[in-house]
C-alpha cells in the first residue's frame, strides 16, 4: 500500500491533489462525475463578503494549449455560502479550503471573521493575486509591502491556517513569497493566472470584454513550475504548486521541484475526472518506483 498522504504541518491531506479555486465551482458541480471523498481537498470559488456579479461576457477565450479568463470573481458572498453551500460540503470526508477575496485588507479580514464561526473549513486560501478585478490586474501580490499587510491582518483575524496565493505577474516571486512568510502565512500556493490578452483581427477588438484576463492551462506549466521551484527553495513553509497540471506526470514534476501538494485547475474543465485520475497516476508511479510514501519524493530534484 502506497501512502499518498502529505503533511502540511497545520493540515494533513489524504493525498496531494487539490481542486483549484475557480475551476472547481463549489465542489458540488463535480458530484455527478467523481467521488469528492477521494480528493486531497478542494478550494471553492473565490468569495467576497457580499455577492458579486463578475464581468460581462465574453469571459473566456482559448489560446494555444491555454485558456484566458476574465470571469471577474462573481460569487454568492459569505452569507449565502454559509447557509446554502457549506452545510452540503460538511458531509464530505475531504479537506475544504475557502478562497478569500477582498477589495481591500478590511474585506479580506471580514470574510475570514464571518466564516470563522462555521465548521467544515480547513483553511483559507488568501486570493491576493486575482488579475481580473482591478484595473490592469493590480492586486496585493504584486508588491511585498501590500502582501505583507494583507497577510498579517488576515492572519491576526483568523482562527484557521492561511495559505497565501501568489501571482506570477511579478519580477521576483521569491521576494513576495518571503514577505508572505514573514507576515505569518502558514503556506503558499502558486501560481494564479498570468495576465494576458487576445485580439480578434477581423473586428480589431479584444477577445475578452475586460481586455485582459488570466492565462491558465498547459501553456503556463513550465513557467509556473520554475516559480514553484524558486519559491520552495527559499521559504520554510510548505508550498502548493499549480499551473497547467493535466496528468500525474505534471503533478510529479511539481512535487519533485519542491511542492508538498498541487492544485489542479483548468484540467477539471477538460475532464471533470482529472483530479481522481491524477491521484491514480501518482499511485501507479509510486508503486512502479517502489516508493512507499509519496512525501519522500518532495523536493528531490537531482543536481
Amino acid at each position: 500500500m502506497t501512502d499518498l498522504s502529505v503533511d502540511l504541518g497545520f493540515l494533513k491531506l489524504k493525498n496531494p491533489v487539490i481542486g483549484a479555486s475557480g475551476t472547481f465551482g463549489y465542489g458540488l458541480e463535480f458530484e455527478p462525475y467523481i467521488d469528492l471523498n477521494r480528493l486531497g481537498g478542494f478550494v471553492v470559488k473565490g468569495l467576497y463578503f457580499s455577492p458579486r456579479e463578475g464581468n460581462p461576457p465574453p469571459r473566456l477565450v482559448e489560446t494555444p494549449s491555454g485558456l484566458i479568463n476574465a470571469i471577474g470573481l462573481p460569487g454568492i458572498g459569505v452569507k449565502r455560502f454559509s447557509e446554502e453551500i457549506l452545510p452540503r460540503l460538511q458531509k464530505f470526508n475531504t479537506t475544504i479550503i475557502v478562497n478569500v477575496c477582498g477589495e481591500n485588507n478590511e474585506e479580506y479580514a471580514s470574510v475570514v471573521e464571518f466564516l470563522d464561526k462555521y465548521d467544515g473549513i480547513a483553511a483559507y486560501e488568501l486570493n491576493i493575486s486575482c488579475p481580473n478585478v482591478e484595473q490592469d490586474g493590480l492586486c496585493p501580490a504584486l508588491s511585498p509591502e501590500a502582501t505583507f499587510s494583507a497577510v498579517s491582518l488576515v492572519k491576526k483575524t483568523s482562527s484557521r491556517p492561511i495559505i497565501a496565493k501568489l501571482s506570477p505577474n511579478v519580477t521576483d516571486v521569491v521576494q513576495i513569497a518571503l514577505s508572505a512568510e514573514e507576515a505569518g502565512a502558514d503556506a503558499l500556493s502558486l501560481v494564479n493566472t498570468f495576465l494576458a490578452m487576445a485580439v480578434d483581427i477581423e473586428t480589431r477588438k479584444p477577445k475578452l470584454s475586460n481586455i485582459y484576463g488570466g492565462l491558465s492551462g498547459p501553456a503556463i506549466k513550465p513557467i509556473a513550475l520554475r516559480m514553484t521551484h524558486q519559491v520552495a527553495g527559499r521559504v520554510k513553509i510548505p508550498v502548493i504548486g499549480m499551473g497547467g497540471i493535466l496528468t500525474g506526470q505534471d503533478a510529479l514534476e511539481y512535487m519533485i521541484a519542491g511542492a508538498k501538494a498541487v492544485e489542479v485547475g483548468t484540467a477539471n474543465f477538460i475532464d471533470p475526472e482529472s483530479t481522481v485520475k491524477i491521484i491514480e497516476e501518482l499511485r501507479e508511479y509510486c508503486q512502479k518506483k517502489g516508493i512507499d510514501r509519496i512525501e519522500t519524493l518532495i523536493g528531490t530534484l537531482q543536481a
Partner: protein
Amino acid sequence: MVKDPQARIVDKKNWKSYFSLSLESPRIAAQAQSGQFIMVRVSAHTQPLLRRPFSIHSKSEKTVEIFFQITGLGTELLSQKKPEDSLDILGPLGKGFEAGKNLKGKDIALVGGGRGIAPLYFLSQKLRSYGATARIFYGGKSQEDLPLKEKFEKEGFDLHWSTDDGSSGFKGFVSDLFKTELEKYTPDRIFACGPELMMKKISLIAQEKNIPAEFSLESVMGCGFGACWGCVRRIKRDNREEWVKICEEGPVFSGNDIIWEEGDE
C-alpha cells in the same frame, strides 16, 4: 449528467460544411431532453483544449445525435471522425425546452437559423409524440445552408424556408419570413434557435403578438456543468438583471427573461 468516455460513432452524415454524428451512449440517451446539450472532447491533445458544446439533435433508445457546422478547429476535427471511432462526451447538460404533454393539440412554431436548427429537430419529434402540430421555419444564408430541409419534408412537417440570397424559398431572413406568415396565422407558442440577431427579432415579434416564446442561447463554455462561470448571459430574475450561467439554468430561456445584446436591429 454522466461522462461517457467512449461513445461509439454509429452513423455519420455530411452535407458540405454540415455534419451529423450519431453516438452510442445509452445512459445519456435515457436522460436526454430536447434542448439539452452535450460537451464533446474534440481532441485527445491540448489543441483545442476545451470541450465543445452541441445540442442534442435527436435520440433513440441507445443513441444521441449531434448536428453541427464547421466553424473552427474544434468542429473541423470533429468532422474528420469516422464511424466506429469513439468520442468522450458529457451529458445531457442544461435545461431544455418546456414542451410537455400540455401542448397537445397546440399549434407550435419552431424557428431555426443555420446550425440553430439542431435542437429543433429533437423538439419536433417530441411535439409530434404529444399530439401538437409543429410548423418549421428554417433559414440559411444559401440553399446549401438548409441541409435538413428534406428530412423535415419527408416526415411531413409543414415547412417554410428562406435563404438570405434567395437561392431557395423566401428571399430574406427567416425572421422576415416568419413575420409574413404571422399575418396568416398565430401560433400558440414559439421555440427558436439561431444567430443572436435572428432570435432577438423573433423575440420582439413574439412580444408584440403576446405569444410565449423560448430561445436556446449560445455562449463560449469553459466546462458546461457550472464550474467556471464562463458562460453567462444577461437574464431577468425577479425584476432584477443578472449574469446567469446558461449551462446550468439554460441554454433555453423564456423570451421575456432574456436581455438581448445591443446591436444592429
